[in-house]
């Protein structure tokens, strides 16, 4: 393929969103809340509908604010249903996001007479188009998506650095965290807010599938490769960047092998991340399937029970 600066910008957008998602994603995976990204990306629909019906425009600022608020509300409602009703967290998430999505759908369909709002175009951003929409910063034409997600990434990074100790303790032991005086409930809501804002900012620019995939797959891959939190965050970010690059590259080359033009970068990013996970799953030095098989065989030879002798 013919690599241009256009391609570089697409990879940059992908990489920035991947890292912005992978960092909070690590904590989501550790807290067994991986499906939150999926839930939020469905549940923001009523927020978007309300913003649209109230302002009458598709201005991205009002939609972003409304979507972020709905995203945070999703986390709050989920927490309420699961605490109050003693419902399993996953089920609570499912109930909340399906309800919100249905309500949003009803609003949009009822108002469809006089508005032009396609849920699809809101939920599935077009990543290939992002380099066309640029802003001039210090003489550089930088895609708006890179700037907006870059800010989110920076905020995520700063928050995680500032609250690293607290987030780490509360991810592994909520009671200890409460005992030490870091309210685990506050940290939970903080993390949920980070996830909601990141999800909304990223899928507005690059599409929801990248968000859902990058929240889960790079952290899961990292968890197979390391047992420590800091290396996990670093490895997850690297996996995110790698899948952005390889995803865009393969989206433009692999269809060519079969005589086609190209395919969507976002879909290929998720696929490549899945392949990277599979490689880690097979070859991880600590718990890869293949490594473990060899180790088991050696182990069996070593642990050959000594014959019992009666003395």
């Amino acid at each position, binding site marked *: 393929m013919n690599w241009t600066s256009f391609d570089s910008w697409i990879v940059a957008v992908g990489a920035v969103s991947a890292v912005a998602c992978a960092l909070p994603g690590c904590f989501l995976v550790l807290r067994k809340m991986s499906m939150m990204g999926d839930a939020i990306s469905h549940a923001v629909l009523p927020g978007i509908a309300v913003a649209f019906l109230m302002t009458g425009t598709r201005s991205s600022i009002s939609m972003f604010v409304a979507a972020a608020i709905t995203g945070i509300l999703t986390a709050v409602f989920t927490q309420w249903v699961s605490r109050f009703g003693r419902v399993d967290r996953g089920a609570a998430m499912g109930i909340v996001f399906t309800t919100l999505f249905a309500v949003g759908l009803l609003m949009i369909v009822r108002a469809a007479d006089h508005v032009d709002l396609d849920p699809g175009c809101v939920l599935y951003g077009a990543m290939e188009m992002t380099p066309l929409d640029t802003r001039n910063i210090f003489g550089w034409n930088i895609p708006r998506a890179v700037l907006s997600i870059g800010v989110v990434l920076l905020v995520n990074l700063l928050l995680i650095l500032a609250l690293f100790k607290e987030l780490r303790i509360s991810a592994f032991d909520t009671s200890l965290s409460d005992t030490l005086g870091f309210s685990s409930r506050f940290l939970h809501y903080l993390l949920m807010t980070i996830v909601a804002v990141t999800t909304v900012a990223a899928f507005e620019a690059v599409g929801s599938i990248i968000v859902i995939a990058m929240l889960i797959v790079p952290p899961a891959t990292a968890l197979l490769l390391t047992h420590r939190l800091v290396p996990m965050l670093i490895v997850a970010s690297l996996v995110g960047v790698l899948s952005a690059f390889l995803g865009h590259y393969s989206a433009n080359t692999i269809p060519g092998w079969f005589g086609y033009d190209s395919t969507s970068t976002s879909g290929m990013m*998720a696929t490549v991340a899945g392949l990277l996970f599979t490689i880690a799953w097979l070859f991880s030095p600590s718990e890869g399937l293949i490594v473990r098989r060899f180790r088991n065989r050696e182990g069996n030879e070593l642990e050959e029970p000594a014959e019992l002798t009666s003395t």
Partner: protein
Amino acid sequence: MPFVDPSRPDPVKSLTQPRWGLRTTLFTGAAGLSLLVFGCSPAFGAESGLSWGDIGDILLLKNYNTRLVVLSTSALGIAAGIVGAFLLLRKRSLMGDALAHSTLPGIVIAFVVMLALGGTGKSLPGLIAGAALSGIIGLLIMLAIRNTTRLSDDTAMGFVLSVFFGAGLALLGVVQKIPKASAAGLESFIYGKAASMVLVDFWLISAIAALAAIAALFLFKEFTLLCFDESFAAAEGWPTLWLDVLLLGLVTAVTVIGLQSVGLILIIAFLITPPAAARFWTHRLSTMVFLSAVIGAASGWLGASISALLPRLPAGAVIVVVTSLVFLVSMIFAPTRGVFARNLRQRRLKNKVERQHLLRAAFEILEANSTKTEQVANAPFSRDDLIAKRTWKPRHLDKILKKETAFGHLESENHGELRLSESGFGEAARITRNHRLWEIYLVTHADIAPSHVDRDADMVEHILEADLVQRLEDELRNRGAWIPSPHLIKNPS
């Protein structure tokens, strides 16, 4: 078979931990309801010039156009309600979500294969077969991740969901560029078309519902064991992996069939919400599965009818909202596990424990004041004595005192002094004795942490055998803390 739920509140612990109060309950309920009503309010605008005749016709299935839709969604509600109940207990409710998304690559590949074989590529059985195959592969990968890594169920589900859906989008991106092939509408396969259902859909859904019901009936014991104690099932020699695959196979069938007829969001909601609502009404699994099927069917019927009665209301969305309303009402008002009932029970228990503490404190004050060790006399005491005895907050103590006075256990004397009534004195003696017996039992006979001594102390004579109570009484007498029982224990021997 009755089952014990490990998540049930520990009666003692729940008193010491912060609770969700009545006010929060009401607030959440109101917030949820107003959100739903706000969302649906445009539905009931002025344009709905409905007669009761129309409503009756549709609810009673007399209208041919809606009969199919209503019956199909109800049947799907039954099927999803049954299998969803087991999913909920296995804490895998979002499985439907993951499976529904993981069907996309299969659908696209089936389309391409059928196109290559010379068809239009849009034959329904072919697409369903592709969807099912891809769902099953996703399912197996989920199980493999769960069984061979330390990643949890939810990560496995999220992984399969996002990677498969991404792969599906990538495939779709290629397919859409095939000349002459109209791939349009392929993606919307997973968003459903409830309003335009045909007879084939109804038969497919009914068959799946029947299959789910039969499987739940014949394998009820096995599925129950799988849900509550998987390791025990494995140790007993049950093929847990195959039972798991069978259960999730049923989920896949329900998801794939439901997906193309009613859409992604409704099928996810149908698998989660009715079982979660049913859980509030019962502690028995069989009742829960039955109720869950009934709730699924009823919301399908009601939602599809409402959607048929009013213009421009997608059936799937209306059904989801109806199901969620049923859930909300169950969560707040269900007598077994609902929030109201639970708060009431906790409040009652708390009151009972507080009153017992008060009577015991009063009795111990009297005991300390009386000269003879064997005979405690009833005498007036002051409120300050009580505060010194136990660290009560004054306002809180006044509340308990008021309740006890209303109960007839306390009387007010002159100079603000208090006095136990005749019945109150007997009760205080009985409670103090029982609590001490229980404490000495825990200290001498059972290796239970001393922090648990408050539990069910008043039940000591019903829990322990008569001769053990006799021995405990001797022990108490030796330690000089003896109080004679105010009523005689009938010794069975």
